[in-house]
Each structure stands twice: as C-alpha cells, then as structure tokens.
C-alpha cells in the first residue's frame, strides 16, 4: 500500500530536527527530554552508556576521544573515530544513524516513522549523499528521500507565506550556530534547484558571543585589574579562569539575545582574579555590538557576493533573501545584509525550524510502499502504524525491576535483573518530565541505576528496551513510579494531619489550614504565610492565637486535638499590629515529635518562639468556647435541614448531639483561661467527639447530595466565569486550583469539608458576578433606588451614582465596576455588628 512519507528531518552539523506534515500544516516535534525542538548532533560513548544530544554535547570538549560532534562534515569519507571507552571504531554513518534514531523518539503520536525526507547541504557530493542514505537505513527507515537544505528552506517559505510568483532566483542565507552557507536557488513552476553555493564550516553564532567577550568584556577586566595577560589565561584550556570563561560565554549569549530587542544590555558578574574579588557591571550597547559583529557579518556577505558575481546577478535579479539559522535573529545581520546586498529580506518563517518544515512539506508529496501492518504488541489505536514487532515471548528475555515505590532521598536505587537473551540489547530509562535520562545502557544479568527524583511528587519513569541496532522492542516497555517524600519504613510518619486554625471572618467561623499532611516523614519543617485578620492595639488585652491542631485536616477545628498554642497579646507588642499585616508561622516537628514554633510579625519585626511536647495536651479556653459556638450553630442548622427534608431519624440523632453539646455549655462558659483543673481537657474531649459525630450525620446520602451540589455549582461557576467581563483568567485559575483538590474531596467523606468547598465555590461565583457588567448594571439599578437610610453616607453615595451614571453613558465599564464596588462599602448593611463579636484566632 502506498503511503505519503510526511516526515522531514533536518540532519544538521550542530543541531537536528524532525517534523511531520499533517492536514496542511507541519508540526515540529519536541524532545521529550527537555522539550526543545532541536537535538544537538552529538554522540557520547560514556563508560557505561551512550548519550545522544544536549547531554552528550556537555562532554564534547572534555572527553574528545569518546564524544563526537560535527561528524556530518566527515560523511562520505573513510574516516573512523576510535572510541576509547568501547575499544572500537565508529563511522560518521553510525553516529548519524544514532542521531536519526534519537529524532524518531521525538515523535510522541505513537506512530513510528518508516520513511523520511532527510536534508543534506547543497555542497554534498554523491558519496556524502549515499552515506546519508545509509545512515537513514541504519536508523530503520525503509525509504529515504534526500533534499538539499536550501531547497527545503525555500519550500518552507513558499508554503508558509503568501508569495504571488515564486519564479526566479532566491538567495538562501543560512547562518547557524557553527556554520554558514549561502545558496542561490532558481525556482520555476516545474522545479526548484540549487544553482550555486558557498560556505564556511567554522563561522556561526558562537563567534558573536566570543566577540563580545574578546572585544568588550576582556578589555574591561584588564582595565580594572591591570592584568595584561588575562585574555591568554582566560583562553587557556583547564586554566584558572576556565569556569569564568563558561560563565562569560553564557552571559555574552544572553546579552546578544537582549540586544536583538533592546538598545543596550549589561553583563554583570563577580570573579576572583589573582586572589582579589571584583564585581563587574559591563554595559554592552547595540552600537558597540554592531561594530564588533561587523567583521563576522562581512565575511558572510562576502560569500554571498561571490555567489552573485559568479552567476553575474545583481540585486534586481534576486527576488528575496530567505533567512535560515538562529544567527539571523541578530538585527545587525539583517540590517547589513539588506544594506550591502540591496535585496529584500524574507524572515516570515522561523529560521531555526524552516529546513525541517520544508522537508516535511516535500515529504507530503512523496510516497513509499508501506509494509503490511502487523501489530502484535498493543491493540491501541495510536499504534496503527507500528512496525511488525516480535511479541515479548518471541524474544527470550525476562526483565525484573526492583526499587522502592517511595523514597525520601534525592535519588533511589533501581535494580534490573535480566534472564535470557540480554546480550547486545540495551535499556533506557527516562523520567516523564524529561529531567532524567540514562541514555542507552547495555543490559546485563544484574544492573544498578541511580534514579534522580524531584522532591515531593510522584516521579514517573518509562523503561524502554532496544535491540542491537537500537531499535525499540516495545513489548518490554513499562512504567513505574517512585513517590518522593512519602512514607517509607526508614522514617517515622505522622499519624495525623497537623494544621493551624485560621479565621473565616465572613462566616464568623474558623477552619483548618494543613501544615504537615498525614504520613509525611519526620522531621518536617514548613513556614506558613498569612495575614492578621484584626487590628491589635499595643498594650491591649486583645490577642492572636496560633492554635496548632492534630487530626483530620478536612474536618472542622473542633474535631481536632489542640497540640499547642501561642497567644500573642497587645501587651507583647512593640507597636500596634494592623489588620492585613503579614505573619509568618514556622513549624518544625522533630524526629521525636517535639514541635518547635517560631512566629514572626512582619509589621513589628518581632519573633516569638515556643517548644511543645506533643505528649502534653494544650487547651486555649477562649478558642474552645468559640469552637463550641461554631459547632452549636452548625448543629442547629443541621437539625433544621433534616426537619426541612423530613428525615426524622437523622433529625433525632442531630438533636441528641445538640443536647449533648448543650450539656457542657455551663461548665465551659464558667472556665477561665488560667484554670488549673482537668475540666478543660474533659470538656475539650467531649466537644471533639461530638464534632466528629456531627460529620457522620446524614450518612452517605447527605455526602452524595453535597457532592452533587458541588459538581452542579462548579458547572455554574464555570459558566459564570465564562460570561464575566473582567479578571476571567485569574478566576479560571482559581477554579482550576479548587478542582485540583477534588480527589481529596471525594475521599474525605467529610460533611464539613465538602460544605467548606461549596462555600469557596459560592464565593468564587459571587466574585465572577461582580466581574460581569450586565449583573453589575442590574444590581446598580436596584441599589440606586434604595432609600437613603440604607446608606451610611448618602451624600457620598449620590456622588458615586453620578459618577457611575457617567461611566455607563460613556461605556467605561471598568470605572463603573469600581464605582459600584465602592458603593457597596457605603451600604448600612456592610457594617455587621455581630462580626465584631467574633474574636477568632486573629489569623486570616
């Protein structure tokens, strides 16, 4: 069956890319390791593994007998590279095939490319072209079509831009990271061909970076330090300034990038030079950069002019210059090229991907005879184009993995045990986020691998197995997860969540904010940042209470056990503590479960430290009283809810709990904060038990009903946000954040937790409505008609009416929104005297 090739590969000297044509468009694939579109054309034979790409490039200059780049230049020659680590020779074809195989791994659609268009430089002769074909075959491509790079670039531009006539000459100016090529292309309706070309294999973007160091940075260092021979020392391999050299190369590249959109940049760094510390801040202006870049650019333009002169062409004879390669982003390159050649430039296509894109367009018109599809390993739709693959039992190989599913370390040991035909086969393990990759490692009877872990997340790893030719054997692929920071037998886990109690002023209640989750391994340390929810005057008896509680983080505070509290009263303050100022609460729980707390009040710059032993109960009487009130209110509401729904049995149970709660009221209200007796512990325990029982009222049906309400409301909130006119994105993010906790919502089976989430949704819905102009107008129309007694300051309200009317008339809806918002603050109902009675914890 004939199938379109569709895949295009830019097999570059420095970097390579793979793209696919699909439905009129071309997709450039990203490397699953690092998410870059480009793959460094470098192969490293490290002692135990083979690395391909960016990681291999890190070793290029340090291990030249085992790491190879720029091998494209040797294609078609009989040159071989002796690899010390494997004690064998490798050819440029083998190295190129490894790069091509690695590019195949970029294709994440499940499809395995069987045919491809591979681009070659215009200068490649027949031997070099055939060598590229062979590399493609070794990489597992059954059909390969070669395409010259300038033609590929031209095709990308012709397809991606709207050019009425393509006939005539085009100049392809390809200035990459390490090489330069200029090609003259002649296009007609029948064909596109390369007429002539020139190139320099040692001229690229890195030369700009080095020019910045050589001409700007080094003279400034010499001026400040007086060390005349600094440049020689900086250039010395393994010299004392080698580390600084690498830093400077990075800063120079950053400055170059900044200069492409800003008139100046500054290179700032500190360095020890001749045992003295220097801080440098070296300005790099565009003017100066233009001056030092000019000789490099002139060299490329000289080559362009050579091509034009050789072909007796003037600027008028050439349609446009097509820009290819990352170095064409440098504005001076574009300016000089346009000025000195007089030919209009075309930079409408991404110069870093255009060759691969053009190759994919070309591939869409090429066909190959696809082998009959045999799909033995996976029945999924995405495997439609998978090649005939031997099933797991056809290869006599058994691999077993052994590692901890959880870890508290930065890395975890994995043991691989192999039985059967493991010789000449390889494995590779990649962490799903791309931050870890073993490269190709030869399978052995027993192998150890250290897997790097990202802290506090589930680290997902993919194991792949390959044959002697680095072709994957998909039947052996598998996934495994290591949870970092979770419970292991090595450490003592926390048996319950530890939370702090914070205020919910709107609802005159408090809720829990979890600090350490259940099963977290001890020791644990965390800082919680909150705001003060009420003003506390210096010297007053008013106080903030940091109530540290143990229990279910999703339950109401009264269901938890207080394991420590800190009271900071007005008498402890060095100045007034204003509502809204920041408080930092650091909790540190040791291996032996000693709780250290440190509270820092940002406004007064005061720190309060306490140490608690979790074996001793701690009760703050005032807080307990408020928790009682909160629970009482909730139970009254619950009884009414059951009455309303005619759920008699639950009503009886709820009423009994309420009566039981009332039985402690007198004793509790009589208690003073300094009470020495055990009464407070007895009462606290009773309230805690009633609170826990209260969460079970209504059984599964009540929970199911609340969850139904939750999902219904969530849908409505999403619709309200969609219809909002302001702050849409912020609100969407908030909703997304709320949705992220749905797992715990489903698993909690806890009424107060679900009700709390419902409340948060309602608040978000209200927020969304207040960001919707039509809603605001309807509200405003009603509020405008209210009698003046409904406002605290009617004169001010009238001023706002006038301003709001004016805004509405001029359709200044953002102003209108602000004015309506201000109006709500003038309403008599905005002062709630009851709220003033609510003491809470003082932590918002």
């Amino acid at each position, binding site marked *: 069956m004939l199938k379109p090739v569709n895949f295009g590969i830019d097999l570059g000297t420095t970097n390579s890319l793979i793209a696919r044509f699909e439905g009129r468009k071309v997709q450039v694939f990203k490397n699953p*390791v*690092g*998410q870059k579109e480009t793959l460094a054309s470098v192969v*490293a034979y*490290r002692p135990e*593994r083979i*690395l391909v790409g*960016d*990681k291999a490039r*890190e*070793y290029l*200059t*340090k*291990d030249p007998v085992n790491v190879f780049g720029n091998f494209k230049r040797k294609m078609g020659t009989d040159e071989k590279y002796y690899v010390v680590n494997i004690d064998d020779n490798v050819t440029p074809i083998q190295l190129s095939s490894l790069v091509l195989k690695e590019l195949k791994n970029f294709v994440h659609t499940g499809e395995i490319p069987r045919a491809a268009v591979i681009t070659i430089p215009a200068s490649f002769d027949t031997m070099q072209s055939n060598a590229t074909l062979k590399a493609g075959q070794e990489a597992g491509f059954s059909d390969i079509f070669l395409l010259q790079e300038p033609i590929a670039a031209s095709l990308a531009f012709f397809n991606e831009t709207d050019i009425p006539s393509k006939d005539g000459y085009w100049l392809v100016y390809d200035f990459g990271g390490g090489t330069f090529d200029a090609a003259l292309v002649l296009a007609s309706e029948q064909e596109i061909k390369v007429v002539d070309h020139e190139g320099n294999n040692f001229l690229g973007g890195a030369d700009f970076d080095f020019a910045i160091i050589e001409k700007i940075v080094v003279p400034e260092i010499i001026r400040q330090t007086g060390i005349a021979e600094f440049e020689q020392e900086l250039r010395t391999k*393994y010299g004392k300034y*080698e*580390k600084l050299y*690498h*830093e400077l*190369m*990075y800063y120079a590249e950053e400055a170059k990038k900044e200069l492409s959109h800003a008139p100046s940049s500054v290179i*700032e760094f*500190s360095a020890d030079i001749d045992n003295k510390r220097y*801080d440098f801040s070296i300005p790099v202006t565009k003017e100066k950069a233009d001056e030092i870049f000019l000789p490099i650019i002139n060299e490329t333009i000289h080559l362009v002019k050579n091509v034009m002169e050789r072909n007796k062409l003037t600027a008028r004879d050439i349609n446009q210059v097509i820009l290819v390669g990352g170095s064409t982003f440098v504005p001076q390159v574009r300016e000089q090229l346009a000025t000195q050649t007089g030919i209009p430039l075309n930079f409408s296509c991404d110069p870093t991907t255009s060759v691969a894109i053009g190759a994919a367009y070309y591939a869409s018109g090429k066909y190959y005879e696809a082998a009959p599809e045999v799909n033995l390993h996976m029945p999924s739709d995405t495997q439609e184009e998978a090649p005939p693959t031997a099933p797991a039992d056809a290869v006599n190989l058994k691999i077993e993995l052994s590692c901890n599913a959880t870890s508290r370390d*930065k890395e975890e040991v994995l043991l691989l045990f192999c039985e059967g035909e493991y010789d000449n086969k390889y494995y590779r393990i990649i962490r*799903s*986020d*791309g*931050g*870890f*990759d*073993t*490269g190709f490692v030869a399978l052995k009877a027993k192998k150890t*691998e*250290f897997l*790097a872990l*990202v*802290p*506090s*997340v*589930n*680290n*997902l790893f993919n194991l792949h197995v390959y044959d002697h030719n680095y072709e994957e054997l998909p039947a052996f692929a598998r996934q495994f997860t290591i949870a970092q920071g979770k419970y292991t037998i090595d450490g003592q886990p926390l048996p319950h969540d530890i939370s702090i109690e914070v205020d919910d002023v709107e609802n005159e209640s408090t809720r829990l904010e979890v600090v350490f989750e259940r099963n977290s391994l001890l020791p644990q340390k965390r*800082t919680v*940042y909150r705001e003060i929810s009420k003003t506390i005057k210096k010297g007053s008896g008013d106080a903030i209470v940091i109530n540290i509680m143990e229990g279910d983080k999703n339950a109401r505070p009264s269901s938890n056990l207080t394991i420590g509290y800190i009271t900071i009263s007005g008498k402890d303050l060095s100045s007034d503590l204003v509502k809204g100022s920041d408080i*930092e609460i650091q909790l540190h729980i040791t291996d032996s479960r000693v709780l250290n707390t440190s509270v*820092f009040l940002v406004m007064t710059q005061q720190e309060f430290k306490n140490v608690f032993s979790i074996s001793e109960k701690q009760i703050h009487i005032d807080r307990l009283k408020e928790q009682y009130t909160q629970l009482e209110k909730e139970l009254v509401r619950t009884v009414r809810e059951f009455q309303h729904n005619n759920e008699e049995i639950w009503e009886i149970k709820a009423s009994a709990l309420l009566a039981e709660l009332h039985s402690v009221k007198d004793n509790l209200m009589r208690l003073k904060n300094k009470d020495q007796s055990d009464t407070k512990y007895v009462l606290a325990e009773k309230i805690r038990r009633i609170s826990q029982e209260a969460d079970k009222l209504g059984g599964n049906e009540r929970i199911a009903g609340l969850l139904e309400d939750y999902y219904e409301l969530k849908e409505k909130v999403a619709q309200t946000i969609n219809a909002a006119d302001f702050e849409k*994105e912020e609100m969407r993010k908030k909703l*997304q954040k709320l*949705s*992220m906790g749905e797992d715990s919502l489903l698993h909690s089976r806890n009424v107060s937790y679900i009700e709390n989430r419902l409340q948060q949704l309602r608040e978000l819905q209200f927020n969304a409505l207040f960001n919707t102009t039509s809603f605001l107008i309807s509200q405003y129309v009603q509020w405008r008609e209210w009698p003046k007694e409904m406002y605290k300051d009617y004169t001010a309200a009238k001023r706002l009416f006038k301003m709001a009317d004016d805004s509405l008339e001029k359709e200044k809806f953002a102003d209108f929104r602000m004015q309506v918002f201000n109006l709500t603050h003038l309403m008599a109902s905005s002062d709630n005297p009851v709220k003033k009675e609510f003491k809470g914890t003082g932590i918002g």
Partner: protein
Amino acid sequence: MINPVQIINQLFEMQCKLQEAGMAQNFERNFNRLYNLFEEDGFIIQDPTGDTYSETRTDCEVSISGRLGSKMKITRTIKPIIYKREIGNLQLLQKGIAIAENK
C-alpha cells in the same frame, strides 16, 4: 502576561548577588516568602549547587570546568531548575544552567 519563569530567574539572580556580597541573610525571609508564593502556584524551584553532577541528569545544561573526574559536583548555578506541577503531571519548564567541576 508576565512570564513567571523570568521573574523566578531574576529573583534567583538577586539572591546570588546578595550571597556574593554577604548580604543574603538580611533578605532570607523575603526570598523564602517569594519562593513560597511560586511554590503555592505549583512551581518547584531547585538550585542544584552542591549536587553531584551525573551524565543521566538532564534537568541541567552544564558546562564542565577543568578535567573530568569521578567526583564531579555542580559548583555554580546561573539559572535554577524550574518544574511546574499540573494536574497529575510534572513538567520541566526550565533546565538549570550550571557549571560542574571535579571536587
């Protein structure tokens, strides 16, 4: 829309400069607070300085200073590693830019 990665990079650079000037302690709380804000938004920020440099570690782009050896460590970090935690997924937003040496 401001790119949070760029803000984190600037923060990190400021912190490094203050460390070099011996003033970082004065601002430690502020930096912790700022990083905490990003962490609450799902970002995981890692400074690999002091970590063992390994060829399997693809979360950093490393320049090797001096000769290769068996005790390679990351001795300088120019940009931190940044991950973003999405629903059930971890994404490497920025590879660290670092220098490794044999120590």
